[in-house]
């Protein structure tokens, strides 16, 4: 079993690094943690970075997960190879670019690029956003799946994820006490489906709504509230068509023994208990 601790970063390719940087700072409200040649690292919490835009094709979409120790990293590599996944062991240079000590990279059954990292860098300086979006940190990702049954089995049997709830066949998976760190949405492609940052309160969600409207950012879903995780949310479109989400008030699951996952309908009511209707392909 691959023992994932946390989702720790997202790497996205873009042809317009400056434009993406402007979005990440002025709109999303992250803080630049490093200006490198052909890459921009962004902070959203106590970690050194949680988002990185790299100069390249927008199809480059990588999700990074943290493991607790070197043994877990080595064991993950062995297990993945045994199952027939091609495992790339990151070079020192590549690890430095990710601000981690060591990492391995592979593709999940759908073809999503996944990295497993050991010792991702934590920052000594607290996060101070470019604007007061109230961000408390990078929290979860949506991942595309071309076969929800197969991929749920991969994440819950090969890895240590547990199903918290399902919306239709879309499984919301937890790897720690947070309701979900990975949300798997059935579609016909591979890649990251959305990127979530938590904000302090529902007030921050609503303030951002008006901030984004004034700047003509395309709001794709919300404001609303997920009946599954109880989080109040707002989805909007970032560079290269990537969906970003702010949310607040996600539930935690403390009692692993008593908790039972629930089935929600795959329709607007299953996604929002306030009545918002999604304009996001994978939610429709």
């Amino acid at each position, binding site marked *: 079993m691959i023992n994932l601790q946390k989702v720790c970063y997202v790497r996205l390719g873009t042809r317009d690094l400056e434009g993406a940087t402007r979005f990440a700072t002025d709109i999303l409200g992250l803080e630049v943690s490093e200006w490198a040649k052909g890459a921009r690292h962004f902070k959203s919490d106590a970690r050194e970075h949680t988002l990185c835009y790299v100069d390249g094709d927008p199809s480059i979409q990588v999700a990074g997960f943290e493991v607790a120790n070197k043994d877990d990293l080595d064991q993950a590599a062995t297990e993945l190879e045994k199952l027939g996944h091609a495992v790339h062991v990151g070079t020192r240079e590549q690890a430095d670019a990710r601000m981690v000590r060591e990492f391995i990279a592979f593709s999940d059954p759908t073809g999503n690029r996944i990295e497993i990292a050991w010792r991702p860098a934590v920052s000594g300086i607290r996060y101070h956003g470019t604007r007061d979006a109230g961000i408390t940190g990078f929290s979860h990702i949506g991942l595309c799946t071309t076969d929800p049954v197969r991929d749920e089995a991969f994440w819950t049997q090969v890895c240590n994820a547990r199903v918290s709830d399902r919306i239709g066949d879309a499984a919301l998976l937890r790897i720690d006490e947070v309701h979900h760190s990975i949300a798997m949405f059935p579609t016909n492609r591979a890649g990251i489906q959305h990127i979530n940052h938590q904000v302090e309160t529902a007030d921050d969600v609503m*303030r951002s*709504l*008006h901030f984004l*409207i004034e700047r003509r950012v395309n*709001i794709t879903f*919300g404001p609303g509230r997920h009946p599954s995780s109880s989080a109040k949310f707002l989805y909007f479109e970032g560079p290269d068509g990537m969906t970003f989400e702010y949310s607040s008030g996600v539930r935690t699951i403390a009692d692993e023994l008593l908790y039972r996952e629930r089935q929600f309908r795959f329709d607007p009511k299953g996604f929002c*208990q*306030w*009545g918002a209707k999604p304009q996001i392909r994978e939610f429709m």
Partner: protein
Amino acid sequence: MIAVEQLRYVRLGTSDLVAAANFAQHILGLELVDQDDAQVAFRSDFRDHTLVFTRDPRAGHSIGFEVRDSEALERAADALAQNGYEIAAGSPEEAARRKVKTFLSFDAKGVTVDLVVRPLHSGWRYFPSRDAGVTGLEAVALRSTSVAKGEVLWTKVLSGKVSDWVGDAAYIRFDTAHHRLALHPSSSSGVLAVEFGVESVDQLMQSSYFLQDQQVRIVHGPGRRPSSGQMFLTFTGPDDVLFSYVAEGRTIDESTHRPRQFPRRARSFCAWGSRGHLPEYDTEHGATAAPGGRS
């Protein structure tokens, strides 16, 4: 000074009683109490009724406040007369229509104020027609051509206190709630908005999508007032009167609270950045449409 106990009701004249009743029941979601040819009354809480639509082509507005007893009512009559208000003692028939023991009324610049004694309470649980999560009548906002004079009436003759000002708009309280009455400077006079409390942000936002589906025009919000801390959603009702749902909001500690002056600009009316589509709430132009809010 005359002690005002409680905001009791709002009576709104309308030329189309059927449409108004339909709005109160199916859009606003209140409980129908009784109706006849002349008026339709609605409950929102433990009070017998808090909203009445009356058949009145002139569309006159009146608001009812409770005073403790008939002695207080007599003192109120004297005090108001001294301040130049023309008092009308309510007839027994009029008192019966208002479901109060006795009352007096006077014209406070475009809105009739009823001071009532022993208004009816209900022993029955409030059971609304739609699950809007209404908890009760919270406040009334008035538009006024002479806010200064209004402030004198409500805070010097009657027992209200100013909780905050936004520009010259005054939020006036009679109990621990931040305000039960808001006076907004305007080019006309009357009831601007009738405000009902709802349980939480969930009901407020559910209503915001419900109202959009029903093609009700949302004129302000969803938002949060920096002054009272209330979340609000304001929309149009019959005869150009606005209605609001409000949730949360602070209570006032009399020993420590001092009224604050907020600047007259849009962000003093909404801390989320929503724009009011009315001159009373917004001094600026260029408002944009918001999902989950106005259409």
